[in-house]
């Protein structure tokens, strides 16, 4: 399990400190294992986080909407343009900016003061935090006598190679596994909402899909994964639903 990295941005020092303290307290109570592998950075200005932000730098950003200088919403738009994966939660005094928050597909909002809205805080965290943990899920396989863990997010797709062995196509290389059957991998991976069986014995990670064509999925690197005629409607509907709700 990797370190979960959270950034908090608020121009009010007291709100910044409160948010960090609150977050650590709730996570320690509800997710003690993950709380031990937690790194929180704080920023007092949107401009500061934008200056250093890179894709993959944070798993979650908690941002105040109204700040002097660049607003949290505008900063979130810049950040979303760089990283479509990072979860964003807004800190706000009321829920009337929720609609605007969805422009950057924010995962939710915390209402200030946090101690007066603890239940809503915990509810939003219960919705968002498991998604962060899921990013670090790994597939454990036996290879050459060794146990190897491959993060789900690195798997582009799985199929059967010419030797009828399960082949994991990852970002860097293609790995053939003789110790596991396709059916075993299928059962494990289909339990994760990222994976879709779009063709006979082909499981694709929907996060790796760049575009959906009439008969194929096109991956980020240009590779085509065919969609079976029989499963077309169902596979496409699942992908579209995933794309909207990921």
């Amino acid at each position: 399990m990797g370190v979960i990295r959270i950034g908090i941005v608020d121009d009010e020092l007291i709100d910044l400190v409160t948010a960090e303290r609150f977050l650590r307290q709730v996570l320690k109570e509800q997710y003690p294992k993950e709380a031990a592998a937690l790194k929180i950075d704080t920023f007092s200005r949107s401009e500061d986080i934008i200056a250093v932000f890179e894709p993959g730098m944070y798993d979650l950003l908690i941002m105040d909407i109204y700040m002097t200088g660049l607003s949290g919403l505008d900063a979130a738009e810049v950040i979303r343009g760089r990283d479509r994966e990072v979860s964003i939660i807004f800190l706000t005094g009321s829920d009337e900016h929720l609609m605007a928050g969805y422009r950057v597909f924010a995962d939710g909002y915390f209402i200030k003061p946090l101690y007066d809205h603890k239940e809503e805080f915990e509810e939003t965290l219960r919705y968002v935090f498991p998604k962060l943990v899921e990013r670090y899920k790994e597939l454990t396989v036996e290879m050459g006598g060794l146990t190897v863990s491959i993060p789900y997010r690195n798997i582009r797709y799985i199929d059967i190679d010419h030797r009828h062995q399960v082949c994991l196509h990852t970002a860097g290389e293609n790995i053939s596994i003789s110790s596991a059957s396709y059916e075993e991998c299928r059962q494990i991976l289909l339990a994760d909402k990222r994976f879709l069986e779009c063709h006979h014995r082909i499981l694709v990670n929907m996060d790796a899909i760049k575009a959906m064509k009439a008969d194929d999925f096109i991956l980020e690197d240009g590779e085509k994964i065919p969609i079976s005629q029989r499963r077309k409607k169902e596979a496409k509907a699942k992908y579209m639903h995933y794309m909207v709700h990921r």
Partner: protein
Amino acid sequence: MLNYLPLAALFICMQLSGAYLRYLPFAAETTEGRRRLFCRCTILWSFLSFVATILVLWQTRLHPGGYKLLVAALPLPYFFIAWRVLGGPFWAHLFILGMQYLWALALHTVVAIGEGLWLKDMTDGKILFCHPLFYLVLFLLTFPFAGRMFRQLLPSIRPFANRKIGLTLSLLPLSIFIGLMLPIADAAVLHSLKVQLSRISIPLFLIIMYRSVSRGALEADARREEEHRQKLLEAQAAFLREQERLLRQSQREADRLADTVRNDYRRLDGYLAAGDMRAALQFIESKEGELKNSRPLPAFTTHSIVNAALTVYSERAKASGLSLRCRINLPPRLEVDEHEFATLLANLLENAIQAAAPVAKKREITLSIRYRGSTMALELVNPTSSPLLLDAKGLPVAAKRNHGLGMASLSAFMKKYDAYADFTQEGDTVRFLLYCNGE
């Protein structure tokens, strides 16, 4: 056996000509990949059936009964290839098969009439040998007409949206063909001119009637589309006017609020200057309640026309006692035309509100739009009290006359942007998904 090689080759050419005619109604919707797969499967099967045809002709020694059976049965594997590879509803392929059989029967009969008139002195064997060649020549001569007809053959009329009725109607041409074939399923090579003329009249009559009816339907469709386009423009203008009204209302509200705040500051100032903290705090508490009830118009997106459409329909949903939840994430620059997209959203929401209005429970419509790079996905979920009927293209069929505006706009949008749409119904909930690849 090798003597039957040329005849078997001509048989296969006949089958390929029929397969091509049956492909034409689906050609416009077929992707390049499917087209190539269809060609490969057809050619592969043609090699196999070429061998099988030689064997059958050799075994039956060119018996007319076996010959006719081959002509009638050989198209069937091609039919299954087309259905599985090209996709589309089974009833559509069945309908096309029936119509192609009737057209082929008409051509065969015309050739047989010619053979009866000019080749009656030839032996049966020679006639059977030459028949496919004459058929192919006549096929090529009539192809400009037949090709045009078959391209427009698939009906999109409402009866076919009902599966049972659709299947029954699609069997009509096939059953007429079987009815015409049964009396001539014998060992005679040529029948009398009277029998031949009667055999040709029914399929030609059916084809001509169908062509007239479908041409009329196409013209009616074109008129409806034009009316829809007009209505789309009117709807677009209407929701822009409504947005303008809402904005003016919001502006008046904001001005009133500004005046109120100024007055409130003066009063508060008065309390503080008099040292009356209790009165000041009570006054602030009363004002907080007022502020909570005053809400500006939501900004769903920075694209003003799309925002106008969403604002208007959010208000309309509220007026119908429904709640519209929106999660809108659009890119700074839309890959599609904003006016067309706003019109599409307006029509989809109009349909959703109409479907949801009679429902007593779960009175909520949710609209989610998300983009990724140049691709965009949209999901619209609404409750409904009526079953969803889909046409051959997978789009809902309008339940009432002069409705269906939304689907016409969706169909046009999908065609222009090569978008993909999916409608499903689970119990009393309809889910619509739309995918658009901007590239």
